[in-house]
Structures are given as structure tokens and as C-alpha cells.
């Protein structure tokens, strides 16, 4: 019987079941291909949502970094530096007053010292080193500042992805010499922060207002002076 059935299958008289079976297979393949294609579209879409969120998180982080740095008030402040002898030199630096945000973390990195060749050998002194003073100064540098700093920027929203930011500084420091590269998932971007601080432009006002700092007589701490007199 099987032989007979095979014969009929291979018979060339009338409609052959073989053709129907072949057609069934072709239809199944065509249907599978259409389904697979539609499925690929859906999975690609999911991937695209993830990529778009990476892009949005990275661009938001970039905007935040720029806003944070730009919100720092550029000031001219007198900076004190021990010159290796008994005297102290004072110079004006282009500093950014930290506003409690990002600049609080990277303030020392981005504050530029005008005469970097000499005064780069100094530490910046934070505002909290002075009693109630709104100004910053610097003292002899005790630690080497890093050429790069890595930041993790994360949010208390599960939809916003964490971003890794790498801040690279040039030797001159200063916010205008800051290169930022951001990485979030598969998305990365890099940009330069170009904040120009015009010393001459703000000097006339700031010169009057600027506090001067110098070491106290024991050389144990930096003190603020007003008009040459030590305030404490």
C-alpha cells in the first residue's frame, strides 16, 4: 500500500498531493519570514528606546555640567603664595566661586591661576577655610591636582540612566580649558567647556572688593586681610 501511495504521490496525472505539500511548505516559510521580520522590528524598537534614553541621559548630563560651571560666579581674588623666602607674593587669579553644586567638587580643578608658571604651585583654599569669608584664596600647593577626574552622574529616577563623565584638564587649568567626555550605555559624547573669564573686565570692581589673603605670622594658616590689615 505504501508503494501504491508513493506511486500516487509521484504520479503525474491530475493534481498531485506533492504540489500541495510543497505549497504548504512554501506558505509556512513565507508566513514565518513575515512573522520573523515583524518580530525583528519590535526588538529593534526596544533597542532604539534604550539608545534614545542613553542619548537623553548623556545630553542632560552635559547640559547640567555646563549650567553648573556657568552658574559659578567668576571673581578676581587675590591669591597668596609663599615664594620660598620669607615674603609672600600676591597675584590675581581667575577663580570661580563654587555654588554648592558640581563646582564644589571640581572647584580646585577648574580655577585658573593667572600666572600659572609660578602660581600653579599653590593650593586653592576653600571658602570654609575662612570665617564667613565669601572669597577664596590659595596657599602653597600640597597635593598634585589630577589631570583627569571621573564623575558618576545618577538620578533618583529609574528611567534616567547613570552617566560616567570624564573631565580632562589642561596644564593651565581654568574652566575654558576643560574637556568633558560622557558615556552612557552605547552613547558617548565629548565637548569643550569654553567659559572665558576676562580678568581685566572684572578687575576694576573686583579689585576694590577682592579680599587679600596671606599667611599669618606663624605661617600656620592663611588669613584674610582688608587693606593690608589682618582681619583675624
Amino acid at each position, binding site marked *: *500500500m505504501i508503494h*501504491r*501511495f508513493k506511486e*500516487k504521490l509521484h*504520479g503525474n*496525472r*491530475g*493534481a*498531485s*498531493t506533492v*504540489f*500541495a*505539500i510543497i*505549497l*504548504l511548505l*512554501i*506558505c*509556512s516559510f*513565507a*508566513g*514565518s519570514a*513575515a*512573522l520573523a*521580520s*515583524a*518580530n525583528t*522590528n*519590535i526588538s529593534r*524598537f526596544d533597542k*532604539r*528606546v534604550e539608545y*534614545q*534614553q542613553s542619548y*537623553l*541621559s548623556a*545630553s*542632560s548630563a552635559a*547640559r*547640567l555640567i555646563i*549650567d*553648573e560651571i556657568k*552658574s559659578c560666579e567668576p571673581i578676581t581674588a587675590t591669591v597668596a603664595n609663599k615664594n620660598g623666602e620669607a615674603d609672600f607674593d600676591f597675584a590675581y587669579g581667575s577663580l570661580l566661586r563654587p555654588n*554648592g*553644586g*558640581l563646582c*564644589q*567638587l*571640581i572647584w580646585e580643578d577648574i580655577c585658573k591661576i593667572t600666572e600659572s608658571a609660578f602660581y600653579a604651585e599653590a593650593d586653592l583654599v576653600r571658602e570654609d577655610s575662612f570665617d564667613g569669608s565669601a572669597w577664596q584664596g590659595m596657599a602653597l600647593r600640597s597635593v598634585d591636582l589630577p589631570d583627569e*577626574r*571621573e*564623575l*558618576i*552622574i*545618577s*538620578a*533618583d*529616577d529609574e*528611567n*534616567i540612566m547613570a552617566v560616567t563623565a570624564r573631565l580632562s584638564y589642561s596644564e593651565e587649568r581654568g574652566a575654558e580649558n576643560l574637556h568633558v567626555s560622557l558615556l552612557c550605555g552605547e552613547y558617548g559624547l565629548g565637548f569643550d567647556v569654553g567659559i572665558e573669564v576676562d580678568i581685566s573686565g572684572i578687575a576694576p570692581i573686583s579689585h576694590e572688593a577682592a579680599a587679600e589673603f596671606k599667611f599669618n605670622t606663624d605661617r600656620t594658616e592663611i588669613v584674610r586681610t582688608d587693606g593690608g590689615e589682618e582681619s583675624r
Partner: protein
Amino acid sequence: MKKLLSSRGETIVETLTSIALLALAMAILATMLTAAYRLDKSAEEEEERLSAALRSAELFTNTVGSKNITITSDSGSVSVGVEAYGEPNSSLRTYKK
């Protein structure tokens, strides 16, 4: 069985079998094509929703509340308050101060 073994009328059996197989093939194809069409349609709708959410997030047109951004470095961490933007029915979010 008789018809199968008989040398006469075999084309009718074959034809009926073929029609049944053809119907099955068409049913399978139609089901798969319909499913594919539905998937495609839903992908298209998702795409439109994604575009709208992306537009809303990028242009800051719809706020979804205040969030805190934490910036951490090896020297410590700070928290910055921001406003998050996006569509409530989408996971796409952006933020700014």
C-alpha cells in the same frame, strides 16, 4: 482506502487532499500574515509614541516632576535639584535645572 488502491478516480482523492492541504497552507499563511501585520501596526504606533515622547523630552514641554541628580567623584558627592521632562506613558526622560 478503496479509492486509494483503485486505479480509477485517484485524481479526485488527490484533488481533495490537495484542496485540504491548500486550505491549511492558506490558513497558516493568513494567520501569520495577520499576526505580522498586527505586530507591524503596533510597532508603528510605538514608534509614533516614541517620537512624541522624544519631542516632549527634548523640547522640555511636559514636566514629570522634580528629581535629584547625584554627582559622585572620588572626593565626595553633591546633589543637584532638577526638573525632569517627558511623557507620563513613556520611559524617556530628560532633565535640566
